[in-house]
């Protein structure tokens, strides 16, 4: 019983990590209808920026805010410079561009910062809670993820920019006719996704330790989480991320040897998706002829 609880709670802690990156994937998908394979590596690179600032002596939250701003601008710049040229090309061209970005960020980080494992400070104290089921740091990660979720939710629901962004992604031609600056919306979408990714990276780094390959595993889980929740839904992304974390732990503990736990968890998730092809909270893509 104690083990079951511990597995569930450590699944939740891991799930919060997946959820935070899944939010960035949802953001970019809603803004541009594209899955960004470089999202994890961009988040990792942002985390290195924060790490440099903290090491230079800045207070944690100061470094946090500067990193967010830099990431936002960086994300916009990437959209303008790299993504825009393939905007009207086949979707595969855009996919390849994001794969290219993944390689570039991974390689650059290794070149600049080396592949050595680095410690990253956590803003939250490190104390066990509920009879060592969780630490205060895990709670901190979950709390920050929920804050980001709330901000995102409000952004899409209550702001004009959020509405315009949704319109621009769903139907660029009509949105343009309504006077929406579609290009600007895409750029802001990329900027916001990069900033959310930066938050994810900074939350993840104290737990997983910082190295250039920190996010390559996480991206896979985040992608799965975002899809099971419904790639268009921020709430879904968070719940999906938590589901992935807990499912994987339970499968590995009670169902099958730990070597195959992710494989089996993926199969279970795909089986669920067979009955809900748009994820648990996603909206069906409506097509008109």
């Amino acid at each position, binding site marked *: 019983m104690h083990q079951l609880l511990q597995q569930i709670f450590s699944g939740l802690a891991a799930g919060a990590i997946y959820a935070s990156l899944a939010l960035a994937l949802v953001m970019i998908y809603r803004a541009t209808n594209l899955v960004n394979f470089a999202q994890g590596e961009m988040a990792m690179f942002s985390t290195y920026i924060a790490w440099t600032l903290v090491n230079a002596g800045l207070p944690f939250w100061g470094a946090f805010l500067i990193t967010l701003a830099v990431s936002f601008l960086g994300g916009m710049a990437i959209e303008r410079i*790299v993504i825009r040229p393939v905007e009207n090309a086949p979707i595969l061209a855009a*996919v*390849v561009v994001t794969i290219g970005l993944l390689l570039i960020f991974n390689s650059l980080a290794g070149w600049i910062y080396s592949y050595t494992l680095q410690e990253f400070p956590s803003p939250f104290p490190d104390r066990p809670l509920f009879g060592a089921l969780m630490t205060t740091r895990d709670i901190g990660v979950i709390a920050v993820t929920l804050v980001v979720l709330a901000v995102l939710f409000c952004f899409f629901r209550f702001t004009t920019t959020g509405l315009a962004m949704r319109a621009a992604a769903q139907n660029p031609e009509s949105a343009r006719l309504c006077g929406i600056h579609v290009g600007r919306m895409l750029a802001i979408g990329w900027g916001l996704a990069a900033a959310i990714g930066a938050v994810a990276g900074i939350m993840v780094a104290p737990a997983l330790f910082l190295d250039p390959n920190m996010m390559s595993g996480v991206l896979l889980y985040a992608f799965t989480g975002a899809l099971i929740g419904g790639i268009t839904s921020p709430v879904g992304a968070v719940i999906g991320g938590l589901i992935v974390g807990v499912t994987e732990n339970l499968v590995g503990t009670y169902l099958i040897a730990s070597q195959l736990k992710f494989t089996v968890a993926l199969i279970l998730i795909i089986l669920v998706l067979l009955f809900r092809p748009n994820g648990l909270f996603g909206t069906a893509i409506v097509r008109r002829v």
Partner: protein
Amino acid sequence: MSESLPVGAAGKLAPIRASVPNAAKVRWPCNWPWNWPWNWPWRWLAGAALIALAVVLPFALSNYHVFTLTQVMIYAIAVLGLNILTGYNGQISLGHGGFFAAGAYTAAILMHRYGVPYWATLPPAGLICFVLGVLFGLPALRFEGPYLALVTLAMAVAMPQLLKYFDTWTGGQQGIVLVKPLPPPGLGLDRDRWLYFFVLAVLLLAMRLAANLLNGRTGRALVAIRDHPIAAVAMGINTPRYKTLAFGASTLFTGVAGALAAIVVGFVAPESFSLFLSLSFLVGSAVGGIATIGGAIVGGFFIESVPNLANDVSDAAPWAIYGLAMLLFMYLMPRGLVGTLGPWFVHAMRKFRSARGAPK
């Protein structure tokens, strides 16, 4: 049925364009070189010249370069397979590295444990991958876009783990070391050159089969499903059947390529089939030309040689150079080399010939 599509003279772009709504956007497919608007003597001469070059080339090159070209052709077959699914049918697969692995291990296990001769491993490898592909294609019918990507990604992620888990068959992490096949006596070819010609023959056969499949009714149906699924259904195209067929045919090609890779490299291990391999195939498919047949060769060249060139440029960050090459390529030719230059070339040929007053 797809008969309702207008059927024009073979080798012209116009009918396909007319059949697809949104025609302005669709400048492809361009099934280079089969749809070039030139008449048979030229077409056959050009084809013969290319094949002659491919036959002469290995005698002018060192063993190492012959081996590299063999690898290029193997990747070309795999990319061709992916292109059937992704390029023609619009289903993006992140899992073809997994099917490549399945083909490679089928060949390796048959050769290593049952002493099957290497050439006889290709049909079973293709068949197993075809069945796997159809099995994957069935649930994939319900998924679109990123959801399909997840299902196929599961394949790519699961495959190395499964290979490690069932280690009595696969040799686990140690992999399987294979004895390289001997060339048939009497030809005077060494091992590398013999394998080159063996793979070349498979590549030509694969391109021919792909052309037969894609340049007719099936190809048009696949493209119609890609470009406008609802209109395709309205036209009476049996979408599930074609989509599953595309999946199976695609994985068949890739599986055969995997078997060839096992034979030529002489070693298989789970590390050979990382997720990155699946991404490489996608890159090859996009760089060569989406929905082109000849583009697969360009794609094969790209994923084989550009990482090496990148390593020559920079020891420190080879992937950064490789990634930059991808960005640059997509920036200059968003439809891939053949997809971009092909129509341009077709256009130039038409102009050239009409200027000379040749009959259309």
